[in-house]
């Protein structure tokens, strides 16, 4: 009988292993069933709402909306059709699908929905302010991380479908906020951060360089200033306000700013250097490109030009905006942005409530305070009459694109007000093609956000 019991033990072990396997399988299926259904052709999508309950996307297709009602957020909210991959709906079909394992796919009455942090009215106002011009705007609450505005032009009304896709303008199907663009002089914010972090404020403020309108660097490269007559001798605050290229070229060359430490600081800020593999930030499933630049030799034109924000340097507007939060909060940590405030399941129960998250420390609190002060002074000196009613810290930039044939205008900044903590990045493409300025857009943006804040 003992020997027969031995065989029973073997049989029991085999059965037990199988039961364990089945238990794992069942748990896996229940846990991943929404993902499986997301990959099927059968979807019953719900709604996407803005922060006040305004519809941004109607998955049921049953509602009727005014013409171009969704155009301001068309390429960031997107749809399920598959034409736009990097959008909120495309990346969150699982959350939006009216499916759960117990109830199955609900054709009617499902309450699955995504409640975003976006402000539809503000997005619309900013979108309309562009008129015929193109560009993008992103803005968020730098205390909480709530994305309030993320509009990009040209855009589309997803309810109209893609029958005339051939006639769509270039970049209609993507939000420019998520992709790298030449930052122009807004890059100088990163360079100032790095210089302050490495040299300290005492040493940096003691440095002064002369601008004669043109600077011939140590390897024979020529750095032009936008002011052909030159800015004369300046310190860091003056050079920042003047956006003086020769000053920053000389700062990069300075031996008090060790190049290896500069590179490390740039990497800490999130830059991919010298053609390394690109990286992406994940914002509720949406991929946002991180910054990239070339830093090879501090004495060469290419590196200096990169630190000034031209040439190979690319930064996404959202990344530019995120750095502002690390400065405005005076913590050196970026507040991570999010679009989804909460999600409801098929029964309307709230789940996945968003929480504020911060990045690792990019630079010290002292550096953050120092840069904040520089930007606030710049805002007060140069922009208080252009953007009225707000105590703002800003940096503008002009980016040469298409080999200098066109220029884009950028403005990054933040509002220094604890009750209205907004960081933003504004891009106007081909600025010379119209009358619009980034300051106009900033005014519209802040006024609209303030009204509904």
């Amino acid at each position: 009988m003992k020997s027969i019991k031995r065989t029973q033990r073997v049989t029991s072990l085999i059965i037990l292993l199988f039961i364990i396997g089945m238990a794992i399988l069942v748990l896996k299926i229940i846990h991943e069933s929404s993902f499986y259904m997301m990959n099927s052709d059968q979807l019953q999508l719900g709604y996407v709402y803005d922060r006040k309950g305004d519809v941004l996307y109607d998955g049921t297709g049953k509602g009727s909306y005014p013409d171009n009602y969704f155009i301001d957020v068309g390429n960031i909210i997107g749809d399920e059709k598959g034409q736009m991959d990097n959008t909120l709906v495309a990346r969150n079909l699982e959350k939006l699908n009216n499916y759960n394992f117990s109830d199955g796919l609900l054709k009617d009455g499902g309450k699955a929905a995504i409640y975003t942090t976006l402000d539809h009215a503000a997005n619309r106002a900013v979108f309309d302010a562009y008129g015929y011009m193109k560009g993008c705007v992103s803005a968020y609450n730098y205390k909480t991380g709530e994305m309030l505005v993320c509009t990009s032009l040209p855009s589309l009304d997803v309810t109209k479908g893609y029958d005339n896709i051939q006639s769509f303008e270039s970049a209609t199907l993507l939000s420019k906020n998520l992709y790298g663009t030449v930052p122009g002089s807004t890059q100088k914010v990163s360079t100032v951060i790095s210089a302050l972090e490495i040299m300290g404020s005492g040493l940096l403020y003691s440095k002064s360089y002369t601008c004669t309108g043109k600077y011939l660097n140590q390897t024979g490269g020529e750095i032009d200033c936008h002011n052909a007559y030159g800015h004369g001798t300046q310190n860091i605050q003056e050079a920042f306000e003047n956006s003086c290229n020769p000053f920053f070229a000389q700062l990069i060359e300075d031996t008090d700013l060790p190049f290896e430490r500069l590179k490390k600081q740039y990497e800490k800020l999130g830059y991919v250097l010298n053609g390394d593999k690109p990286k992406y930030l994940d914002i509720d499933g949406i991929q946002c490109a991180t910054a990239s630049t070339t830093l090879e030799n501090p004495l060469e034109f290419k590196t200096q030009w990169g630190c000034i924000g031209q040439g190979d340097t690319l930064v996404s507007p959202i990344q530019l905006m995120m750095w502002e939060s690390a400065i405005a909060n005076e913590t050196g940590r970026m507040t991570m942005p999010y679009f989804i405030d909460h999600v409801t399941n098929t029964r309307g129960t709230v789940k996945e409530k968003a929480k504020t998250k911060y990045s690792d420390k990019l630079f010290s609190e002292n550096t953050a305070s120092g840069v904040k002060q520089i930007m606030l002074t710049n805002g007060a000196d140069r922009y208080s009459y252009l953007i009225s009613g707000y105590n703002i810290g800003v940096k503008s930039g002009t980016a040469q694109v298409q080999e200098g044939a066109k220029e884009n205008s950028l403005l990054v900044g933040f509002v220094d007000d604890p009750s209205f903590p907004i960081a933003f990045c504004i891009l106007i493409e081909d600025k010379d093609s119209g009358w619009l300025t980034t300051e106009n857009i900033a005014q519209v943006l802040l006024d609209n956000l303030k009204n509904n804040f």
Partner: protein
Amino acid sequence: MYANPVAYIFSCIFVIFAHSAMLVNIWFNGNFSETRDIAVLGAAVIILDIAFFVVILFFKQMSYVLDFLLILILNMSVIFQSCFICKFNIKHYITCIICLAASKCGYILCKNHKILQSNKKYIYGGIGLLLLLVLIVYFAKHDMWIRIGSFTLQPSEFIKPLFVLACATSIADQQKKHKILIFNVVYENIALFCIMAAICLVQVKSHDYGSLPTFISIYCVGFILRICYPKAKFSKKKLVAVIAIIVVFLLIGLKYAPEYVQHRLHVDIWSDKTGDGYQQSQALIAIANGGWFGVGPGRGYLSNIFAYDNDIVFATVSEEWGLLFALMMVLTILIITAVPLINPTRSYYHATMSSCICAAFIVQMALNIFGSCNLIPFTGVTIPFISSGGSSLLVSGFMTGMLTAGQSPVFNEHRSKSKSKSKKQEEAVPAWRWKE
């Protein structure tokens, strides 16, 4: 009649009730276009139930549990397979009848180990012939199946019960050690190792990698039980050595597996869901679509996908009947394999046979279910009793008969003394027994 006719009647009612409940579900939730089709299916199932209940009365067994479980699962299978095509699946029905007959053949052939022991050479010969047949079929048609009309037979399937018998019959010779040079050798072990090696070679040559784990499981269980016999406890050293050897062989096998096997090991079904991951991704979507209670018999879309009725049958049943019902189906098969735990076999030979069959059934089921659900690489083997396929059902039936034989063994020496009244009184009285 039975010593306990109440148990017999209760079991009959339970099986008929279970099948009737399934038929009622089809009536209310099914997708059969013709009422007549449901009636035909219902009549066929109930008639087969009743006919089998009558037939088993003619077999003198100490336990009939496996018979009731077999008819329960087979007619469940008939109902499933009919729902997949929304009409009575007569081909599967006939195969199930053959399966029932095969179970009775298996019972009769295997209940007396002395006969099998003395005819062991025919078992080895049978395995050799079948291996040859597999090779001939492969080289002649580059195929694994022999087609007879609309029925297909897979010769390699028939090796399974013979291999189980080879493992079980070798137990008695485990004591006969022969000294070759300085080694104590058991000829049976060498013979079985050679058979296993031959099976592996032929299966690899004929590109039937899916069946290999089943054979390996039978061999491993047989080997473990052989090396532990007749000691009172497991030899841990040997056990560890065996496991280590298996792991080494597995690693070597995986490293040198052909390219298409390697690809299956690493395929990401969701990034290749229209290519190599098609069946698995569709299977998982179907399970999710079915939820706990299914979309209704015949209402699933997975029945439009290739191999819906065999390789991914668990998902097809889950979609139409729900995951809960599919799990009950699996539980029924598990109970079949677990019967020797509840009602122990009467000899080590039958115990070894039962363990090997349990291993074969469970490994096959695991390969099918876990493979189709992307928990392990997809192999394309069948679930015993449920998947369509003549040879699979035939062999599963035969092996269930072998399990039944373990429940009601015949011992020659007992038979010779059976006339003695005192011996008769010493025999244990099982719960269900034939009143002699």
